[in-house]
């Protein structure tokens, strides 16, 4: 798990010679997920997503602490951490990949850009290759916001859902990401 910390820090402390690269970062991104079933809806929110985007190379990474997800009910949070995500063993989730559709030139002008991020999504210690669609928005002041909505199948990442509660957990979990980047 240590290398999940190293990459963003490596990008942050890269030599001055690389300062010409356009790098954006956030430490307070937002990820929420929704499990929607007729039995129960479960929403988890995490406002401490760390992400770094290198507009020169297209490299992107985001990482999140599982225990920083918050729920309406304490029992949901406890079951999420102890029974499903096993967060004592797998404390973090991450995505590492490459973005196409936006680069240094696009970030210099106001606009909305459709992007595709291809890479590995690691949840519960299991990495799966994914392609995530999203949007980068650059406003008149040059602020950059990235958003994406995608779905995750918990069982693809080795998360076991007991038969007793199978009807309470959606097969496809809806994930929503919102990142307000700042230039590094």
């Amino acid at each position: 798990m240590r290398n999940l910390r190293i990459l963003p820090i490596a990008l942050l402390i890269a030599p001055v010679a690389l300062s010409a690269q356009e790098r954006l970062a956030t430490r307070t991104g937002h990820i929420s997920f929704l499990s929607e079933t007729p039995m129960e809806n479960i929403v988890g929110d995490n406002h401490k997503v760390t992400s770094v985007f290198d507009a020169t190379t297209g490299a992107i990474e985001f990482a999140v602490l599982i225990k920083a997800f918050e729920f309406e009910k304490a029992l949901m949070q406890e079951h999420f951490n102890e029974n499903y995500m096993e967060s004592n063993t797998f404390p973090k989730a991450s995505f590492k990949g490459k973005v196409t559709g936006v680069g240094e030139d696009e970030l210099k002008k106001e606009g909305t850009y459709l992007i595709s991020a291809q890479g590995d999504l690691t949840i519960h210690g299991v990495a799966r290759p994914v392609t995530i669609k999203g949007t980068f928005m650059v406003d008149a002041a040059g602020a950059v916001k990235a958003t994406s909505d995608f779905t995750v199948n918990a069982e693809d990442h080795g998360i076991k859902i007991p038969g007793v509660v199978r009807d309470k957990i959606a097969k496809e979990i809806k994930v929503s990401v919102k990142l307000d980047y700042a230039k590094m």
Partner: protein
Amino acid sequence: MNKRTIFLLIVLLAAIGGGFAWKEYHRTTAKADELPVKETVNAQDLMTAFITDEDAATARFVGTTEQVVQVTGTISAIDPAGKLTNIVLGTDNDLAGVVCEFAAADVPADWRSGASVTIKGICTGMLIDVVLVRCTAVE
């Protein structure tokens, strides 16, 4: 004990059990000031612990179940974020600090950058920063 009494006892036990189950199901997560403090540390030492040995620091400050860490430090940044506010406690690492997430209404009005403060929060680990959530101010 006659059948009517037994029946009433069963109904009473079922009601008590049902009430407990309902209360437990609807229990909300506690803020940091509603739980006992497990560790007291300053921001620099907390950061150093995670950088030196993340696994050991996670075991000590995050624990296997939620636990409260009381941390002292100097505010290096106050970042409003909608209904939340992030209070960043500075460390000797310019790139990283201890980020304490508050409900915006819970941040004392007189807190400013440079102020020395004490905060209780649930430690969730470290990405670039050490992250505490559901924080409250210690006056």
